[in-house]
């Protein structure tokens, strides 16, 4: 594995979004991974509709919360194609699901893997390099006050409450860390990103990690 790896440097990670006052992190996490894998496979980097997932993924509860794995399962089972964000814009409110014909262009999930990598974060690094950005869920209670730097304390595992996108890692410094894209806008954290220490399953980052296949 390379000592550091960052999918942003390959121009396959879309800009940081802001979920606003809506519990839609689970949808941002899944759509972020799909956008990146689509670009890694050679397509132009394009923002896909988070609102479509929010409105249509019936296994979840829209702005009242949801699970990235349930959303991925819904995408896989139904074969729903996500349309561009421009065609189905984000409203930060749960709405009525808009349907598109099968002939309408879009990006569909063919499969996904989900694993618990606790105690195996090196293997998780391998998955990130091999598969693309990963969706994960974390304990983000202390993130209310986060300004920047590498989180090493105040973060439990197995009490996950927030979904994020892992886009890279860096093990070259004194403290190895994950590079994580959040969906609380660019004014939060390190221009919308948070760094989490690798090893020890800090914030539960390794508890439930998914990779998508398109």
């Amino acid at each position: 594995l390379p000592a550091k790896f960052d999918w942003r440097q390959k121009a396959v990670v879309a800009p940081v979004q802001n979920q606003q006052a809506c519990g839609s992190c689970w949808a941002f996490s899944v759509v972020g991974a799909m956008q990146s894998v689509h670009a890694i496979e050679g397509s132009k980097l394009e923002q896909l509709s988070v609102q479509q997932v929010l409105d249509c993924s019936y296994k979840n509860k829209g702005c009242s919360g949801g699970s990235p794995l349930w959303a991925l399962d819904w995408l896989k089972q139904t074969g729903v194609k996500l349309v561009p964000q421009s065609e189905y814009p984000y409203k930060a409110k749960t709405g009525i699901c808009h349907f598109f014909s099968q002939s309408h262009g879009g990006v569909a999930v063919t499969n996904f893997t989900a694993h618990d990598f606790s105690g195996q974060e090196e293997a998780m690094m391998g998955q990130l390099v091999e598969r693309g950005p990963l969706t994960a869920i974390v304990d983000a209670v202390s993130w209310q006050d986060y300004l920047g730097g590498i989180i090493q304390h105040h973060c439990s595992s197995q009490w996950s409450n927030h979904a994020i996108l892992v886009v890279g890692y860096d093990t070259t410094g004194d403290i190895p860390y994950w590079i994580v894209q959040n969906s609380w806008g660019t004014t939060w954290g390190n221009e919308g990103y948070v760094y989490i220490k690798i090893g020890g399953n800090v914030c539960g980052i390794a508890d439930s990690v998914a990779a998508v296949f398109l």
Partner: protein
Amino acid sequence: EIGSEESDRRHRYFQDATKRHAYLNSFSAAPQSARYGINQFSDLSQEEFRDLYLQAQTSRAPCFSGPKTVG
């Protein structure tokens, strides 16, 4: 509106946040350590923050059983 019940409540949450920051930063000795302070969520109570932003449901995943990666 300054002096309103809502304003007083927000002010109290803000004061609570500064106490939290002092505690959280007391663990941050190394230069790269996380820093905690005033941001856009500082006038929310912890309950409000949780209800608005921490709504992901946990789904258990099986342990990874693929090949171990040698560092």
